[in-house]
């Protein structure tokens, strides 16, 4: 028997029906709701390419049972900024050359937003530790760390101007 359940994704209520209730949130996002931004690679929480926010916590979508996330606020890469208007983190990744094949990028963008919300001026060590759950096989991470630092600097500068 299949249960029908509703997920709140990027501010919208999305009904999931005719689906096996053992599916992961990652699978439901991609295959049931057509949100292909979250990537699936390892499906065991090792790579971080499916990182999403559930009630403001950064988690691996592949390790969330979708049917258990009813009533929670789910934010995916599609919900991080309006289409065509990149977030400051997305723009910094482009500017720093932190995107190569791009497969890890959505997860890293989500992880970077979570990191900077928690710690606005992270040290390099902190950035490396906080992004340790997101695997990138192209960049060697240098430009990703650069991108994170650019956002931190620009946000501080913006805060100083407005204060």
């Amino acid at each position, binding site marked *: 028997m299949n249960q029908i359940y509703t997920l709140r994704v990027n501010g919208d209520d999305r009904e999931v029906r005719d689906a096996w209730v053992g599916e992961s949130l990652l699978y439901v996002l991609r295959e049931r709701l057509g949100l292909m931004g979250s990537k699936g690679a390892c499906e065991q*929480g090792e790579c971080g390419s499916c990182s999403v926010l559930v009630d403001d916590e950064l*988690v*691996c979508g592949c*390790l969330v049972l979708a049917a*258990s996330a009813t009533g929670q606020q789910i934010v995916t890469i599609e919900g991080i900024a309006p289409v065509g208007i990149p977030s400051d983190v997305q723009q910094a990744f482009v500017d720093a050359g932190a995107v190569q094949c791009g497969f890890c990028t959505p997860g890293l963008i989500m992880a970077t937003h979570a990191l900077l919300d928690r710690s606005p001026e992270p040290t390099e060590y902190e950035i490396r530790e906080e992004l340790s759950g997101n695997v990138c096989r192209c960049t060697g991470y240098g430009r990703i760390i650069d991108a994170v630092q650019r956002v931190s600097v620009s946000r501080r500068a913006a805060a100083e101007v407005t204060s």
Partner: protein
Amino acid sequence: MSVTVAYTLDDALESLAADPSAIVLAGGTDLMVALNSGHRRADAIVCVKRVSELRSWRHDPDAGTLRIGAAMTYSELMDDPLAGFAPALAQAARTVGSPQIRNAATIGGNIGTASPAGDGLPVLSALEAVVHVASTSGHRDVAFADFAIAPKRTVLQPGELITGVTIPVLSGFQGYSKVGVRNAMVIATASACLVVDPVGRSVRLALGSVGPLILRAPEAEAIASAAIDFEANTIGPAAIRAFGEAAGAAARPIDDHRSSAAYRRRAIEVLARRLITRACPSITGEPS
């Protein structure tokens, strides 16, 4: 297959009583891997990660204890205020997976999964924690040492749920160390937790990933308890060496895909020496 999301302890226990074959889902970091890969099938899942009673903690200053709800996450254990009460548990928490994993993974899940490599478990062993278990027929407490009976097997009966764990809040040194191939996202090749209780004048050393269960190292503990000057917080170099050797001798490691038994035993010796040196930073006597 059915999925039940429980919000209260009574809801969770009633769901488990109604279908004792139901699998408990907390953080999902173990169970979802098994479901995703098809290695495990489930007819019924009871999700307990939002049960309010399991999401709380309580410090009892009179008893000198900290009770941690089973659904508290490693991210929560890593930071104050809990880190201040249980520093070794906070250190162990920081070595768990990645931020994504720590935001999901729970202490109760770690206890219930009962892997010999569970990062929180050597700490609970060294602190001689008490595991709280409930079912619709009542509550019971199980000493941590008696909880796991084999790798990934526990004394938990059908219909029972881990509700929390109680540990003593101690004043002395406590530390957790782990060896793995990376600093992040790594299952322990070997791990150890040292707790020095200057009030009770005892030393406790627990070992992870070097046996079918979390092990204690009683001979090493006896060596350190006798050798430490609890007033000055010092220990001699010969005792440090003997402590490390006794810790290695207590390990019961195997060769597997992650490491060799010989390496694991050696790693335990080094981890034990390192931890006791951190506990007693001014070493007395001649350097070794």
